């Protein structure tokens, strides 16, 4: 049924804790049975045998003791289940974070950040009820009725038979009606999701509605859609609730049948009052675990649905292979002459049949500036992402001074390379941390000098708290240009040997653009750079332009030569459709 073997494994890993949880919640039920038995002795003693309070007082005291023990075990079982749940949730979150790290930004590009956050936070929280209520309940709902049966059969076989015959009806009906409800929900699904999201869609598009002059009258549509939603939902609920009705009916009618059946046998003296009363007391208890299970059915479903999302994330194929053990230290080469050779490299994105890069052969020599040019989708950023080791090529290899880059650890490689993205991220933290990204090995002097080189000296001077100024709170907003400079400072601080850049394309203020340009030029000096070029001047200034088309290198050379010899390149520079 609603069962996920991997979720069960999570619980089993908590071994003792899980067993104790189930055991103690089973004991809670067991003690309740015992308590009912004592209670039946008291009532029967007073009623049939005309005992006085004094005579039954010890029994009542025993019941009180049982109550206390039951409360104790109740506390223990809930506490254990809760603790176990919190542990499992924490463990899953740790795994999820580690997995996200391994999947890297390449994976995140195709996923919505919001959805991932939901999976890691609310999704994991949705397992709460699954572990603390549903899973223990599944086992208790098997164990406890069996125990009650074992107690009842010797006392009154007939009632035992009624129990045995009616109990299986509960899960049976649950499944049957569950199917019917699911089919109905599926049929109404489109209407339900459309009507359900209508209100949010309206609020999100409210300014467009206003521009179109439709916002005032939309209020009536909101009501209509809502009313329609109500009717459709009620239609579905009418069927969904039948499963609860069936459970209720089976449980209550069975209790009624038992009551009448033992009542009549009492009348003919075939059963003692105390036994009859005991059975009446525990008849509801017999059905209770099964009813609880169905009440928790929803929690179980939510948990399993959440688990599917969590495990599909945990099982996602990882783009970067870490299997190769790093065997080389990078520091030795970094300052020496280096040469990167790209040999017959191909890459295609998962799920896409066409290659994003195909048979790329390229030599990158120390101290030279390379520009990657080509229309969007030609493979420029794929190239950069492979060099940054966010993705691993399908075919071919990248050699640094003759040895594959996989022989260096990812950390080492990334100390060697630097990356200036188009849209750098800013973190809700101080300016200092935003530059060092929490690396304590940089000195204040180094950070300040990096900020100066990046052209942020003025900003730093204007901040009352200097480097300690929090960047997102307290109204300190960085402009687009300043944000670019922050990213520059990050690179200046680390002085990478190979620098990859993605040129900004947003419409910056001309003054800003000019000064940013000059900062970037300083950074590029005496460094090996590979720029994803969006500006003519960059292409003109590059030692070599790598012209990409449909994932292949269409031409390599300096700009002037390419303009002269490659007509297709000229078309591209002029922004015309490329003739093939």
């Amino acid at each position, binding site marked *: 049924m609603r069962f996920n073997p991997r979720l069960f494994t999570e619980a089993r890993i908590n071994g003792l804790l899980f067993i104790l949880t189930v055991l103690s919640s089973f004991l809670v039920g067991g003690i309740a049975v015992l308590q009912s038995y004592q209670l039946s002795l008291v009532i029967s003693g007073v009623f049939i045998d005309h005992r006085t309070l004094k005579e039954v007082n010890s029994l009542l005291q025993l019941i009180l003791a049982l109550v206390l023990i039951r409360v104790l075990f109740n506390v223990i079982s809930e506490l254990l289940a809760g603790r176990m749940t919190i542990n499992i949730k924490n463990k899953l979150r740790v795994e999820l974070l580690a997995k996200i790290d391994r999947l890297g930004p390449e994976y995140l590009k195709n996923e919505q950040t919001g959805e991932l956050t939901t999976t890691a936070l609310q999704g994991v929280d949705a397992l709460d009820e699954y572990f603390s209520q549903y899973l223990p309940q599944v086992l208790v709902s098997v164990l406890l009725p069996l125990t009650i049966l074992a107690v009842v059969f010797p006392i009154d076989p007939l009632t035992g038979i009624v129990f045995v015959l009616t109990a299986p009806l509960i899960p049976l009906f649950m499944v049957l009606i569950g199917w019917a409800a699911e089919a109905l929900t599926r049929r109404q699904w489109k209407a339900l999701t459309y009507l359900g999201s209508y209100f949010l869609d309206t609020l999100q598009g409210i300014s467009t509605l*206003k521009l179109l002059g439709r916002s005032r009258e939309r209020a009536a549509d909101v009501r209509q859609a809502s009313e329609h939603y*109500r009717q459709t939902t009620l239609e579905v609920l009418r069927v969904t609730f039948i499963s609860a009705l069936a459970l209720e009916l089976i449980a209550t009618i069975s209790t009624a049948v038992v009551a009448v059946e033992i009542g009549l046998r009492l009348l003919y003296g075939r059963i003692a009052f105390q036994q*009859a009363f005991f059975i009446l007391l525990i008849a509801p208890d017999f059905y209770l675990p099964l009813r609880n299970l169905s009440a928790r059915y929803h929690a179980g479903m939510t948990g399993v649905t959440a688990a599917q999302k969590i495990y599909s994330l945990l099982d996602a194929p990882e783009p970067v292979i870490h299997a190769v053990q790093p065997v080389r230290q990078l520091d030795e080469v970094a300052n020496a002459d280096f040469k990167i050779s790209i040999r017959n490299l191909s890459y295609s994105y998962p799920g896409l049949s066409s290659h994003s890069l195909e048979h790329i052969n390229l030599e990158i020599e120390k101290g030279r500036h390379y520009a990657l040019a080509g229309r969007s989708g030609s493979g420029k950023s794929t190239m950069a992402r492979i060099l940054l080791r966010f993705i691993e090529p399908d075919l071919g290899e990248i050699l640094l001074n003759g040895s594959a880059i996989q022989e260096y650890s990812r950390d080492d490689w990334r100390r060697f390379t630097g990356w200036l993205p188009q849209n750098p991220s800013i973190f809700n933290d101080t300016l200092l941390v935003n530059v060092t990204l929490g690396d304590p090995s940089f000195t204040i002097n180094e950070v300040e000098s990096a900020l100066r080189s990046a052209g942020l000296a003025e900003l730093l001077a204007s901040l009352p708290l200097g480097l300690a100024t929090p960047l997102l709170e307290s109204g300190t907003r960085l402009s687009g240009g300043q944000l670019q400079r922050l990213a520059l400072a990050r690179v200046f601080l680390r002085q990478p040997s190979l620098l990859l850049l993605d040129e900004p394309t947003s419409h910056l203020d001309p003054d800003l653009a000019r000064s940013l340009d000059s900062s970037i030029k300083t950074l590029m000096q005496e460094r090996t750079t590979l720029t994803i070029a969006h500006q003519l001047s960059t292409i003109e200034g590059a030692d070599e332009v790598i012209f990409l088309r449909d994932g292949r290198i269409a031409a390599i050379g300096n700009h002037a030569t390419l303009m002269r010899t490659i007509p297709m390149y000229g078309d591209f520079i002029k922004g015309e459709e490329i003739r093939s």
Partner: protein
Amino acid sequence: MNGLRRLFAILREFTGEVLLSLLLGVAAIAAGIGLLGTSAYLISSAALKPSIAELQVAIVGVRFFGISRGVFRYLERLVSHSVNLRVLTRLREDFYRRVEPGAPANLAAHRSGEILDRVMGDLETLENFYVRVVAPAVVALVIITGVSFFVGGYALRLGLILALGLLIGGFLHPALTAIVSKSHIQNLARSKADTSARLVEVLQGLEDLQVYNAQDRYFGSLLKAFQLSGNLQKRLLNISVGSSGLALLITNLTVLTLLWTAIPLVGDGEFTGISLAVITLVAIASFEAVTAMPAAALNLNASAVAAARLFSIGDGAIRGRVGAVTPDLISCPELILDGVSFTYPEGDHAVLAGLDFALKPGCKIAIVGASGAGKTSLVNLLMSFAQPQTGSIRINGVDLRDADPEWSRSMFSVLPQSAYLFNDSVRGNLLLAKTDADDKELICVLEEVDLLDWYHALPDGLDSWIGEHGVRMSGGERQRLAIARLLLQDRPFVVLDEPTASLDRVTARKVMESINTRTGDKGMLLITYDLDLLKGMDEILVISDGRITQRGTLIPLLEMDGVFRDLFDLENNRIRDS
């Protein structure tokens, strides 16, 4: 608490359904109590071996309660959910009507979507106010009263004991639990919101973090946040475990106290042993009425917070002025901006500072400026989404401040920078612009924006669904559908914010031609960088830092030294690679 009063006011509108659902809720629990009570009566009477006829009534009672309980419960759930959904409808409509006049300003927030997320969450909490708070409390009160009177009928003392036990279990204990856990719940919510914001930040910045090998540090601090959250959860767990243990204890102690008090009364002959059995089982069964109360107490808290928050949105918003001027439709309108300055409420510098220009029918003005120069604010002012602090915007002499904002907006067809497409069919999206357009007209306008091939490939023609925010379309297709919507409108002025930004050059030319054909006689305001588009303009305004720094036609501007030429050197330096 004012928020809760408004919730009750909404509930009063559905008094009939609310009463029915309460009645059914009471009946369902009463049937459960009745089942055990009559069963106890049946068995204990049977033990005295009367004639079977004497048991008939009890047997019928047992059967009746056995069947009716489930039926009552089923009906009660249906009716109460219907009440829920009615409340939801009312809440949504009210909220929309309240917020609409001041939108979009009152729904804007630092982080996009933040307010809407909260609104949807609050609505969900309030939607369940009836089922989770009101109904359980009322039903519990009725049952407690009924059961206590029933048991009190045997002996007053017993009724009082049961009433006391039920009230402690159903009201005092849940209230105390809610008070004790309140601060922890708030802390946990805060910790969760904080963790979520941090996680989003790390996910969005993972590229930068990994490039600098900083991911371990950031993941480490996230793990610490998870740990903290876990600790808070453990504290809450302790409270809830203690509370549920206490509830169990209260139930059992009440039953035991009843027995201790009742047993001597049987000996004294106050009532029979049959009654003792009945009282015991009725008491045990009656506690079902209070099981939902601890959750109800917590929900009451959450509902009060949600209501206060939800009802405060829109209350402080700019409203359309009542009795504002709605001038007659004018044949030859003229738009004049006179010294318009604008500063955002929380901003420290003017986004627009002293803007002057006039737009006449058939006249085309372009606005050029770097991002952040104030172009979007200008559009917002024209739309009456905000008002200039100084200066005025007039249409044929009528200041937009004095005009009905709806009327002002009806003067403009606007293509905003990111036009919103609704989760609807192609037809539904287009008809928003012109309700009475027929299919021929719609297809014609699709052809004008070069979407005919796209249209022919659609599975259901105009009825094809475009998905949430138009996810089933490419960026260029979305832009062109928005332009098609604009072309269906016939209004005196046209405002276009970078209409060709996501289109390739060939398509851009085609689409712009259609726009020009349709709007030749109208006043057009065009925000753009596209040199192709600037050629046909009557006047180009160059804005930087909120001021018009240069104005004129293309050729003289290009020959002049200044921002415009710099911008165009930059623009020409850009490779059009999309």
